[in-house]
């Protein structure tokens, strides 16, 4: 009871703080809400809004992850925390905005917030160790705070941030920070664009090893996920963020080899959730996926492993935009459409010992426009990377070519085609 109430109060407080900030900076279309607006909001349903791709597919999922983190960090389970994301989003849409509540915000906040919230919660857990003291403890708490701010606040309020406790149970994870240069070239059938090299920083995480706990054959929600987040720093249009994740909501494992040790090969079939926000390119898109997937893991000792993954599912909401295909003359209020359809994902991680680490993350969408210029859209991306360590388990270098495409056929015979190729060179730091 206390925990549920604390979680609810935390979510309300986050909404209040956002609203109060908007009030202070005079963002009047949001904050100036009266009883009449709220009654109208409640009565008018949830149409789709005209906010930017960035606001709808990055900002809202991030705020949703704050709601989730506020609930999860009180001690609630992943599934107990999920309704708080929807509740927080409903509260914001109905009570805080003088504009109409938007259905797309509900979807992106809830689905994205759930995924990113649990991922950041799990990654922050990797940093925390209640048995440490001094600078080590402070560094860990600050890191965890940065990854999951609501959890950091909760730990300070409850004094957990400085209370002695047991060390965490070790969890297999590969977290690598990247810093380097990103060069983008993009084009269409009629136009081309080249962008100068940009600085970028990123984090690549593989959490969990896809092996069930001893004596079990199932893997619980988000005990395994891939997560990649990048920030591209440039004065060019390609500045922005990228966030992508594939997480297991429930997995069923079957062993492929007779041994029962940690290096046995296995196959995991499961229910998979994906999030995708490609907002730092000439060609931008976003989407969410929910479906089934299969992961095959072949292990050969502690340093050699091949993981192949494939998933397919429903994409309840997706959108694509590109600088080289402006929506001029289409009558659309946005430079993108809201669409719905299916997505297919592929992933590969190949640990080759001292030879390096090879990876692939690819996802393709095929959707039909549900709001905007009527038509069909197909888009996707594939990022291949190769990393090799110069200092074992610490420093290395990597390179990653990436291909993106969009192909849309719209009412009236209009067609939009765009491609992008980019190349990253970066240093790696194993965390």
């Amino acid at each position: 009871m206390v925990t549920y109430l604390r979680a609810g109060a935390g979510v309300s407080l986050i909404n209040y703080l956002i609203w109060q900030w908007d009030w202070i900076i005079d963002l009047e279309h949001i904050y100036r809400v009266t009883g009449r607006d709220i009654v109208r909001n409640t009565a008018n349903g949830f149409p789709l809004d005209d906010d930017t791709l960035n606001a709808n597919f990055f900002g809202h999922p991030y705020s949703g992850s704050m709601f989730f983190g506020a609930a999860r960090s009180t001690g609630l389970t992943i599934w107990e925390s999920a309704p708080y994301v929807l509740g927080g989003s409903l509260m914001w849409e109905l009570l805080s905005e003088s504009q109409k509540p938007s259905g797309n915000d509900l979807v992106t906040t809830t689905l994205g917030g759930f995924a990113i919230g649990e991922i950041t919660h799990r990654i922050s857990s990797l940093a925390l160790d209640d048995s440490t003291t001094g600078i080590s403890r402070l560094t860990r708490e600050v890191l965890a705070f940065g990854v999951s701010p609501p959890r950091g606040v909760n730990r300070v309020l409850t004094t957990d941030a400085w209370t002695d406790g047991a060390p965490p149970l070790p969890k297999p994870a590969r977290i690598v920070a990247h810093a380097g240069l990103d060069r983008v070239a993009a084009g269409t059938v009629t136009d081309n664009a080249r962008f100068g090299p940009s600085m970028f920083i990123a984090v690549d995480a593989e959490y969990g090893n896809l092996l069930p706990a001893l004596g079990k054959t199932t893997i619980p929600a988000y005990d395994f996920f891939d997560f990649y987040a990048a920030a591209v720093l440039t004065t060019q249009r390609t500045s922005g963020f990228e966030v992508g994740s594939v997480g297991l909501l429930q997995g069923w494992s079957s062993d492929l080899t007779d041994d029962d040790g940690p290096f046995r090969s296995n196959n995991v079939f499961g229910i998979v959730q994906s999030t995708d926000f490609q907002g730092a390119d000439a060609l931008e898109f976003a989407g969410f996926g929910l479906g089934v997937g299969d992961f095959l893991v072949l292990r050969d000792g502690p340093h050699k492993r091949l993981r192949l993954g494939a998933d397919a599912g429903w994409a309840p909401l997706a959108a694509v935009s590109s600088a080289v295909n402006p929506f001029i003359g289409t009558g659309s209020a946005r430079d993108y459409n809201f669409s719905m359809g299916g997505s297919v994902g592929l992933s590969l991680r190949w640990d080759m010992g001292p030879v390096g680490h090879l990876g692939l993350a690819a996802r393709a969408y095929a959707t039909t426009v549900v709001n905007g210029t009527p038509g069909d859209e197909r888009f996707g991306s594939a990022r291949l990377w190769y990393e090799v360590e110069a200092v074992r388990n610490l420093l290395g270098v990597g390179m990653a070519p990436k291909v993106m495409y969009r192909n849309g056929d719209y009412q009236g015979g209009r067609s939009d085609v765009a491609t992008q190729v980019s190349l990253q060179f970066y240093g790696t730091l194993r965390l």
Partner: protein
Amino acid sequence: MTHRHLLPLAVAASLVLLTPAAAHADQPAPAPSPAAQAPAPWSWGWVLVAATASIGATVSLGSLAVHCPSDDLECARWTSLGIWGGIGFASMGVLAGLLVVRAATPPPSRVQVSFTIDRAQAGTAAPRATFAYSF
């Protein structure tokens, strides 16, 4: 199979039968959901929760009832502050009150029991049973 092999099996079988099914896990059972823990004892924190929630709700509901002319933006500005100020006040008060309640609540006692039979012994060694508890 000799009596040296039968004895550990007999002990193991007895433990399986005499301990609850939930204790047969290979690793410590996860901590119970907070909702499943014992209810919190009475605390002055509840007074803070009730008082701030009541005041916040009153301010918010009172502000909701204010009728602003559609062209009076200043009225809307301050009315909205009342609505959300009440929500913010209640949220902070409830959170503070519940932290007081939490601080007054003794930590839940946890007893974890695990029992494992390891049959993967090489050679002629008997299966090995491990019974462990922690609290």
